[in-house]
C-alpha cells in the first residue's frame, strides 16, 4: 500500500486546482486535498490552524495575482518553527524562465520545482523517497 499524504494546493487557476485535486485523489496518493485560489488565504489558514495542522505537502503555483509563489514563501518563512516543520513545499509551475527556476532552486523552503502538468508518478517517487 502506498503512503498517503495531506495536500494543500495553491493556484489561481480554478482549472488547475480542479485537475490536480482529482489527480491526487484518483491516484490514491492523497488522503485529503485542500485547494486555495489565493496564496494569501492559504497563508492565513496555515497561521490560524497552527498546532492542529497535520503533516502537509503544499503544491504551490508561481505566477498568481495578489501574492505570488515567491511572496508566499517570504511570508511562510516568518511563521513559527512548529508550523513550518510540518510542511513540505513543492513549487508547481509552467515557468520556463531561468530566473524563476534559479530562484526556486536557491530557496531553502522550496524542496523542489515540479513542472506542469503534474506527473503523478514523479510526485509519488519524490514524496515516498
Amino acid at each position, binding site marked *: 500500500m502506498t503512503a498517503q499524504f495531506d495536500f494543500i494546493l495553491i493556484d489561481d487557476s480554478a482549472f488547475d486546482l480542479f*485537475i490536480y485535486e482529482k489527480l491526487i485523489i484518483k491516484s490514491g496518493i492523497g488522503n485529503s486535498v485542500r485547494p486555495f485560489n489565493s496564496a494569501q488565504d492559504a497563508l492565513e489558514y496555515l497561521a490560524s490552524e497552527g498546532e492542529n495542522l497535520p503533516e502537509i505537502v503544499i503544491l504551490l503555483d508561481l505566477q498568481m495575482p495578489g501574492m505570488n509563489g515567491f511572496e508566499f514563501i517570504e511570508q511562510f518563512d516568518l511563521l513559527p518553527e512548529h508550523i513550518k516543520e510540518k510542511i513540505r513545499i513543492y513549487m508547481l509551475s509552467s515557468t520556463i524562465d531561468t530566473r524563476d527556476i534559479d530562484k526556486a532552486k536557491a530557496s531553502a523552503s522550496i524542496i523542489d520545482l515540479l513542472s506542469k502538468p503534474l506527473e503523478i508518478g514523479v510526485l509519488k517517487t519524490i514524496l515516498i523517497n
Partner: protein
Amino acid sequence: MTEKQIRILYIDDEEHNLQSFKASFRKQYNITTTTSVVEAETFMEQKDFHIILADQKMPGMTGTQFFEKIRVRFPEPIRILITGHTDISAAIDAINKGEVFRFIDKPWDYTYVENAITHAFEIFSTRAELKQRNLDLEKAYEELDKFVYSASHDLRAPLMSVLGIVNLALMEENVESQNEYLDLIKQSVKKLDTFIINIIDYYKNARGVATITPINFEELVNDVTEAIKYLPEFENIEMTTDIKQTGVFESDMMKLRIIFNNLITNAVKFQDTKKEKSFIKLTILATPAHTSITFEDNGLGIKKDDLEKIFKMFYRAGATNSGSGIGLYIVHEAINKLEGEIKVTSTLGEGSIFEINIPSVNK
C-alpha cells in the same frame, strides 16, 4: 521650439559688452547676463540654459576656468568662449579643459554669433533628443522583457492545463465522464485563444497604422455585441444602450472596437451572480468634436487598492475568474493613442463605471 525659447547665459565682466549683446539679440533669444561668475552659477541652479557664453578675460577667473568648473555639474549647456586675443595655449586649454564648442572673436560680428548660437542649439537639441530616445528605448526593453515573461506564462499555462486534463482523462476508466474533461479542455483552449487575440490587438494598437473613418457608434456597438453574445455568461446580463450621435465623428475604428470589446466583455465576465439581475448600461454622446462613452455595470466591482493598477500591463486583480491582465492595459493604450481619457469609479460588491472621453481625430 522657436528661437525665442533658446535660453542663453552670458558672463562678461564688462557691463557694456553685456548691454550691446542684449541690444542686438534680446528680441531673438531669451537672454540672462551677469558680470559675476558666482552669480552665473546661481542662475544656472535656478534655470536650465541651452547655451553659455563667457568672456575669456575676467578678473579672478578666466572663461576657460569657469567652464572647467561648471562642466561636470552642468554638462548639458553648450559652451562658447568670447575672446579678444587668441593665444594658442589658451585655445588648447579652452578646448581640452573647458570643452568649448566655439570661439567668438572680439569685437564680434552679428552674423557670426547668430550662426554659432544656431549651431550650438542644434547640438543641444540633438543631444537632448538622443537622451530621450535612450530613455524610451530602455523603457521599451523593460516592457518587452516583462511582456515575454508574462506572455510565455499565459501562453503555456492553458496548454499545461490541457495536458493535465488529458493525464486525468487517461486515468478514467469510465468513458462516459470523458465529456466533462473535453469540456474543460475546450474552456482552456478558449482561454488561450482569447489571449492570442489580445496579443494581436495589442500589436495592432501599438504598431499598426491608424485608419481614420467616420464612426457610426450604433453600428460599432452592434458589431461588437454580435461577436460576444455567444459567451455563455452573456445570456444572464441585460445590456441597454443609449446612443446619441449628431454629425460626423471621425476616429480609428480598430481602436474603438478594442475599447468596446474589452469593456463589454469585462462587464459580462465579471458580473455578480449573487445579484438578481445583472446589467450593463452603455451611454454614448457623440458630436463632431468629441465623444463621451460611459459603461456602467452592477458587477463584482473593483477593490480600492486595485483601482489604480488595473490599467497596468499584466496586472490581474482578484483571483477568481481573472484574465491575463492585458485587456484593460490595451484599452488604456488605445485611449492614449486617441488622445482621450479614461476614468473608473467602482465600489466592491456594487459595480463599476468606466467613463471615456475622446476627441475627434480631426478636431
